[in-house]
């Protein structure tokens, strides 16, 4: 799966960076607009055809925006770029970011300094960092080749782990890297018919699982995110088949964690889904406003979906860490039979899976 923009827009200030050189090598036939500074208004009108490369002037490391009133996993974001071209109908980035062009940050020297300082400043803390919050972690990896720098770096960091979340099968560059067990490669999973209708640009289920199997063969630990779980007709059967395929393809004992999260979105996304994805049945189910203002499935359905999935997944391995993404304690108790507080909190549960 190769991302192919129609043109490049690059800030002159980052022209002499390794990342820009790699991008220009890879897309040598594309027209390039060299700009002094990416214009915010122009970017906001971006139609998704351009790859923007800029210097990032904010913090490269952020805490997951989470949401009030629900339990957050305490994931930290390594912010290397924004937007995605996979075209998932439910993608929150459609409402969260005004422009549709992918953007990469090329001042990576600044990123490395900040990352090293961040890890050094709290050496006792467990750091779970990921690059998949505002972009797909591996979509542009064949171009940026960043995995080949990040993975060996994290291999040497005690009490830290890098999670690469993707819906692609772009894992070729991960082969042969010294990862020290400190990189977790993660896939978001859905039944194949939902992938076709709601994740049209993403890799198919079998391709994702095969990529996961290869990563496991190369010694990586894996994670899976059943997020968003989508309640379409026959969802029980659909997700049962996904879990069966998962069990048949990878070794469950080497799965670091699996998250479950039902479809949820800020109300502004509803109109965008209707306008951009006219054939999508995503909005047919009933939604109620959650405590954070996002629209969610009614609690009975959420609990039913979590119970169904967790029952299937627990059969794979007694030791499998299953967690709910952005749910309240009462839903945890009702769906999984316990609350994270009884086990030291959700962050601690996940931290326990990070090698010391």
């Amino acid at each position, binding site marked *: 799966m190769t991302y192919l923009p129609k043109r490049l827009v690059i800030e002159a200030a980052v022209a002499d960076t390794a990342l820009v050189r790699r991008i220009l090598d890879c897309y040598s036939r594309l027209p390039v607009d060299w700009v002094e500074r990416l214009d915010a208004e122009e970017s906001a009108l971006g139609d998704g055809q351009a790859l923007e490369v800029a210097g990032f002037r904010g913090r490269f490391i952020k805490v997951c925006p989470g949401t009030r009133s629900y339990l957050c996993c305490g994931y930290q974001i390594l912010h290397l770029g924004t937007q995605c071209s996979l075209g998932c109908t439910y993608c929150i980035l459609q409402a969260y970011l005004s422009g549709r062009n992918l953007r990469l940050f090329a001042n990576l020297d600044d990123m490395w300094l900040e990352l090293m300082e961040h890890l050094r400043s709290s050496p006792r803390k467990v750091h779970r960092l990921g690059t998949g919050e505002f972009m797909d972690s591996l979509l542009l990896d064949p171009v940026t080749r960043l995995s080949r720098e990040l993975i060996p770096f994290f291999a040497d960091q005690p009490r830290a782990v890098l999670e690469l979340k993707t819906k692609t099968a772009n894992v070729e560059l991960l082969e042969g890297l010294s990862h020290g067990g400190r990189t977790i490669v993660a896939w978001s999973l859905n039944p194949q018919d939902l992938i076709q209708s709601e994740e049209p640009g993403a890799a198919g289920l079998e391709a994702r699982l095969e990529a996961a199997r290869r990563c496991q063969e190369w010694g990586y630990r894996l994670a899976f995110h059943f997020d968003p779980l989508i309640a379409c007709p026959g969802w029980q059967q659909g997700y049962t088949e996904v879990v069966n395929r998962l069990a048949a393809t990878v070794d469950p004992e080497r799965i670091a964690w699996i998250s479950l999260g039902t479809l949820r979105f800020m109300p502004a996304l509803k109109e965008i889904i209707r306008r951009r994805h006219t054939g999508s049945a995503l909005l*047919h189910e009933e939604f*109620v*406003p*959650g405590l954070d203002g996002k629209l969610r499935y*009614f*609690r*009975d359905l959420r609990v*039913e979906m979590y119970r169904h999935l967790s029952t299937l997944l627990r059969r794979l391995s007694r030791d499998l860490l299953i967690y709910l993404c952005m749910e309240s304690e009462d839903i945890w108790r009702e769906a999984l039979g316990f609350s994270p507080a009884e086990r030291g909190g959700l962050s601690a549960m996940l931290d326990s899976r990070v090698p010391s």
Partner: protein
Amino acid sequence: MAEPHLEPIPLAAIDWQDTSCLITYGPLPDTLRRSIQAVGLLQIPLLQGRQHGRFRIVAGSRRLLICRELGLEPVTCQILHESLSPEACLRLAVYDNVATRVLNPVEKSLVLAKMLASLPRPQVIGEFMPLLDLEPSSKLLSRYLELQRLEKDMLDALADGTLHERTASALVPLAPSDRRALSALFGEFSFSVSVQEEIIELAVEIGRREGMAPAEVLKADAIAALRREQKRPARHRAEEIRRYLQGRRTPRLTARWERFLRETQELGLPSHVRLVPPPYFEGPHWRLECTFQSGKDLARVLQAVAVMAEQPEFQTVLEGHSIS
């Protein structure tokens, strides 16, 4: 360019087909007719000279129409030179109108559409939307432009205020038959504007899920029966129609709510005590409301509730236990 001048104009010299500067919509106001009848024209219409001794109406079309109706002519008009650009004439028409009255939503839509034909979008948003008392936003501009897609009877309703512009905007994307079905319902029952928007949304979403047009949704037996029950107050029937649509759109929430009502009734809470679930049953925080007359009364009520809270039936109410 020659200065505007006053001139008596025979009405036959006016090109009534040229509506390029026309921004009025709606019936001729009676007050204006009575005023012209009583004291004649107080404000002079503005025309532009055209070829062959013809004239284009720039401002004052309603005054001129009334004059024609009343057989008053010639009419003294202010005449603009032929060389004045169409955009400049239109601008004069708009400023002339907004200075003397509030434009109705159809007229606002006309102004924006006509200005957009000759001016860039940011200028229309920045200059003309505030002039029309509209928030200067691209989204709102699009909404107003789309009103032009409505049928004449709906535009008439919009102009005379019986159809609100928010409701009209919600009807625009629908098929004409769905628009007619919904506006007929709104004609029968006086829903608030926000409830009208809610009902449109509900009918559309139910229709999408069930594979039918919104007009078909409104043909449901339950709604038809409520529409027939003329003897019952319309307000009650309107509320029941709304609840029916809500229940059909959100069956899980509705079932949970009905179960909650049934279970709390079976609990037999003391009188003057009410148990209130979290909004949409989301989150752990329930409320207990009670009224009391004295400290002693309150203590008695709370003791009774405390005993009840220990019962398994009370836990059943709180827990969402019956997963379908």
